[in-house]
């Protein structure tokens, strides 16, 4: 038996000859929750759309995606269909545009049950009701025959999650599932994702630009920049002691809900255009720690002694992390104790 559920190796994507993903390596163990964070255009969504063969034809995808040791990249449709929705399910940011507006939600869920589990008729309906109950749709028996527009945004996202669970997937890929929702509803959906994972034991990939949300759902996170993973480690390691200047910059740029109302510390400049990536480290033009070698030599993602992966010639932060001084880290330890 293969140890990892999913293994990505050297996953690359180009659109019309412009390389946007530069080789992603990632292992997902059974039941694990991994966060992918980064700003728009860093490739966090494209990674999973490419892995599941959901990109349009003009995209060139190369590398390897293995599910339980079986290659799925560039495989015929029937192989992919056995994985998509069944082994790996995906939910998106805008639930109302992912649901079919002219079909009743019950029908949409039973359709998934018929395809992936061969359930029909009363058995399928009973299972759809169970799923709707599980994701917290109140009064599911009456509402199963309603149309998507009769549900609120948060409830549409719950329906999407119920549909994703229909195939009893081993991995749920959630792409910004709470970004379009109100704060109090966002908290409910995060809570639901955590509860479902505890109940079903499925692994979760949580794609988000919100570091706060990622740290609540996941044990491990990858920080991506310009189509590459620049730092990867446990949530605690990343938040205690971010080593990549970009990770550190992302933390510093977030305003705080406590402490003094100081000026924010932005990351200068903007994300580079993928057509025109800087030489050496892609982050070097915005980096306060950049030296000469950063502008000429590309850093390689490699393991450090404390078990994280890092791609930086001149990392920030203390090493090894003795005596946490970073305020965010101190708060993590407080919360854990």
């Amino acid at each position, binding site marked *: 038996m293969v140890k990892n559920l999913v293994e990505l190796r050297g996953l690359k994507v180009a659109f019309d000859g412009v390389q946007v993903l530069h080789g992603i390596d990632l292992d997902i163990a059974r039941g694990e929750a991994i966060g992918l964070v980064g*700003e*728009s255009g860093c490739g966090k969504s494209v990674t999973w759309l490419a892995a599941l063969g959901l990109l349009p034809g003009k995209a060139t995808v190369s590398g390897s995606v293995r599910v339980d040791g079986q290659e799925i990249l560039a495989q015929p449709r029937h192989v992919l269909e056995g994985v998509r929705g069944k082994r790996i399910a995906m939910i998106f940011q805008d639930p109302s545009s992912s649901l079919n507006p002219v079909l009743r939600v019950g029908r949409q869920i039973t359709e998934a049950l018929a395809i992936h589990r061969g359930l029909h008729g009363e058995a399928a309906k009973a299972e759809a009701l169970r799923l709707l109950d599980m994701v917290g749709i109140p009064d599911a028996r009456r509402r199963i025959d309603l149309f998507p527009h009769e549900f*609120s945004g*948060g*409830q549409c996202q719950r329906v999407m999650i119920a549909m994703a669970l229909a195939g009893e997937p081993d991995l749920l890929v959630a792409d910004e599932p709470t970004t379009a929702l*109100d*704060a*109090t*509803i*966002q*908290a*409910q959906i*995060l*809570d639901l994702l*955590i509860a479902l994972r505890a109940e079903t034991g499925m692994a979760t990939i949580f794609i988000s*630009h*919100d*570091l*706060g*949300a990622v*740290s*609540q759902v996941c044990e491990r996170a990858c920080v991506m920049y310009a189509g590459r993973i620049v730092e990867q480690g446990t*949530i605690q390691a990343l*938040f*205690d002691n971010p080593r990549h200047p970009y990770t550190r*910059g*992302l*933390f510093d*740029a*977030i*305003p*705080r*809900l*406590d402490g003094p*109302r100081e*000026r*924010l*510390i*932005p*990351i*200068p400049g*903007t*994300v580079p255009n993928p057509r025109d990536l800087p030489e050496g480290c892609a982050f070097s033009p915005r980096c306060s720690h950049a030296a000469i070698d950063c502008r000429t030599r590309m850093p390689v993602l490699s393991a450090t002694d404390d078990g994280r992966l890092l791609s930086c010639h001149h990392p920030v932060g203390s090493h090894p992390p003795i005596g946490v001084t970073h305020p*965010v*880290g101190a*708060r*993590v330890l407080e*919360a*854990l104790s």
Partner: protein
Amino acid sequence: MSEHFKTPLIEAKGLVRTYEVRQGMFGRATPVRAVDGIDLRVMPGETLGIVGESGSGKSTLGRMLLGIDPPQEGQALFEGKPMPKLATPEWRALRAKMQFVYQDPLAALDRRLTIAEQIGEPLAIHNLVPKPHRETRVAELMSAVGLRPDQAGRYPHELSGGQRQRAVIARALASRPKLLVCDEPVSALDVSIQAQVVNMLRDLQEKNHIAMVFISHDLKVVRNIADRVAVMYLGRIVEEASSDVIFKTPLHPYTKALVSSVPVPGKLLQGRVILQGEPPNPANRPSGCAFHPRCPLAADICRTSVPQLLSVADGRTAACHMVTRAEASVAA
């Protein structure tokens, strides 16, 4: 204390705005009170943050403060004088003193004009700067918001999201306004860029002594930029206080839930107040306190009587039976 005697730059008194909403093509139109009796005041140079979920009426309120959406009841006063009627010459003249910044800069900019032309437009419309000097003033405005001189000839689609929002802000500043109403100005931007724009707004405001109404659903950004914060729920203000105290010691159960719903990086989910249910439909407003169906503290009185926004401490108000009762018993 002298603040009380100064004239507020803008003051709202009992603002009400109702929309007619039809259920289906032949359904009866039902009135929806999007803004339901709002009182507020903003002093010159002060920033008032307005937070709330979608449908709470915060954007409608912003438009009403500028007179774009006329109130059905109540009135807005600018420098102590009633707002002139929409689209009259007096209103247009006043609009130079109050500007609006929207969430989506691409929609707010004209795709066929260069950004320098757009930043210069208010100068021409309000006839503020004679034509020969306009170019200099545009260059000044661009540098004030951190745009490079070589970007003057660019079209909106050639700029990044952050740069577009800078251009929108430069255009808003062109007429030297006294009030800026910003509706979710940084929500569409990435964190690193968001921090750049927030800092810029703070600097510009401090330098030019501009008052600001900052509407956002992002509590962290509002806390950073606002002096005072009003929390809205279903068309009403439920709590108002300085931004330092309101997030530290929220009183209203809804504010408490909002503050607790903000995921703090590195903090675990445990111990958070997670509200049950969804914000109710404004067309079908619950009786009594609109928040009572979701409120963990709700008692009988909350189902029948509407709580008024009352002063609970120096400079802070709340509309909650449970809070005002507790404060009264402390005082007694």
